């Protein structure tokens, strides 16, 4: 796909899509969406970029290795945040009871750690998308996908 139109359009669109993806991730506790949806949007933006330019171009922006590191990192992040609730003397994944605050309508940083959890999920889903894309596009496919 070396079409100049596609490339130009994508170059313009991709940042917007990414910003939207981030928006969806960060407003997961306030409005529809969240880590899953936002991560998918973010991930598809990267896939779009890689598709419209070149596989290598995509790989330059986000390498295969980095992508899978991010994937694991997202999961670890999630679990660690969950364990934070324990560290604060409450249940796993506890938010409100541990005094981390409760979501207030319209305020971005009001949801305590939900925000951070969404971030973890978003990163994980986005990088998973990208890894999947690589695995299917390249000749060597790694069998084990996981979620």
């Amino acid at each position: 796909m070396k079409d100049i139109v596609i490339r130009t359009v994508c170059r313009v669109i991709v940042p917007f899509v990414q910003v939207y993806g981030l928006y969806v991730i960060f407003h997961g506790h306030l409005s529809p969406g969240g880590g899953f949806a936002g991560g998918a949007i973010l991930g598809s933006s990267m896939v779009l970029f890689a598709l419209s330019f070149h596989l290598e171009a995509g790989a330059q922006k986000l390498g295969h290795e980095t992508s899978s590191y991010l994937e694991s990192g997202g999961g670890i992040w999630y679990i660690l945040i969950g364990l934070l609730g324990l560290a604060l003397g409450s249940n796993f994944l506890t938010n409100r009871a541990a005094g981390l605050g409760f979501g207030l309508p319209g305020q971005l940083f009001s949801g305590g750690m939900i925000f951070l959890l969404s971030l973890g999920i978003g990163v994980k889903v986005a990088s998973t998308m990208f890894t999947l894309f690589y695995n299917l596009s390249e000749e060597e496919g790694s069998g084990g996908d996981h979620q």
Partner: protein
Amino acid sequence: MSLHLPVISIALLLLASFVMPLLRRGARAAALPFTLSVLGAVFTVSLYLIYLVESRGAFSYHVGGWPPPWGVELYIDHLAVYMMMVLSSICLVVMVYGARDLYHEIRAEVMSWYYTLYLLLLASMIGIALTNDLFTLFVFLEISTISACGIISIKKDRECIEASFKYLILSVLGSGCVLLGVAMIYMITGYLNYDFVAQELPQAIAEYPYNILMALSLFIVGFSVKSALFPLHIWLPDAHSSAPSPSSAVLSGLVIKIYAAAILRLLFRVFPAELFEVVPVLDILLFLSVLAVMAGSIFAMVQEDIKRMLAYSSIAQIGFVFMGIGLFGNRALLGGLVHIFNHALMKSMLFLAAGLIIYAAGIRNIRDLRGIGVRMPLTMGAFAIGAFSMVGIPGTNGFISKWHLALGALDLGRPFFVAIILLSSLLNGIYYLPIVINAFFGVKIEPRSEHRDVPGMMLVPVLILAAGVIFFGFYPGPILALLEQAIVL
């Protein structure tokens, strides 16, 4: 703090599974000790949880501090800790074996993925055992499906790929049925938490009898596919025989059982007992289990590949678990449940022994196993113990489960099922014992040149499991005591 242990152990497993892919190059050597220590820690936790539940009774845990019906709830009762103990102990032992065996079955680069999938599988199975709501059940069900397929297809064999594809499609079908069942339940009651659903269902029977019935049948179909109850078993022989041996051991020993435990929990805690009086669901399960027991044994008799034979034998043995559920008497349930543990012990041991033979001698065909016992006496000795246990010779744990199942059937005045159990034992004898005999006696076949030495790290787990078979044959008291509390009807 100790109340947090169940969730901590699941979190620990998930954490470890995410960490695994991060271990690259130099750090790769750390993967195995790390995995083993995590598994060991979970096993220790499960033992402590048994003590905890014994001493202070069942307790529930609200993830995120949200009370049900909103929050995700874990319910840690006797059955749950029993299953957790079974899962973690077998997983630990199999991993000790697998660490050595896998290097010759799969490529070194994907070993870290194997650990990831393995830990995920264990985490999801523990999740299924502990969960108290349909939501979490479904999530863990799906994770376990994918990771179970993953540990088959990680061996890039054409048989493995095809088998895991078949397994995947049918499992997803099963999950779909379960999800639809969950939807039905939610439609009727408006809840997903077991306790709340159980509260609502008795009133709902009069109003929506068909929906409840449909939900129940969907659950049964869904879980039967996953646990390979007889007519829905078609995926199992391929999947379990082609997988790497440690995967086969876990799949046959644990994975199919956890779904049986899940359906038991649903029948037990969610659906009202009056329903079973109206609808012959249990009789259908019984009928299928009898078919499974007989058909599995008969199919196993005609197999030539040793792992395939073991896989078919699993179909028969899962029939025993379902027979216990279907009979639904105290003692029969006890027999079915204790068979989960007993069969996990013996079948994983048999698969590991078969794997050891394949590793050392490169033999898969049963006819070529002649004289292998002379070369590998310990392995075949363990295999013989497993075979005796399958037949139900007293002094092995297979006897204990058959004893309780048979007594349970008699308690309910159904000696027919005792006859089925005995017939199946006879069939087991007919196909297991000749292997043992041919291995030790009779015409020797010249060993092939490629005979490898058996590493101690692979032999020890097999011997540990064999010792377990004998030990729990003579000393099943603690397990039975635990289970007796688990099934107070």
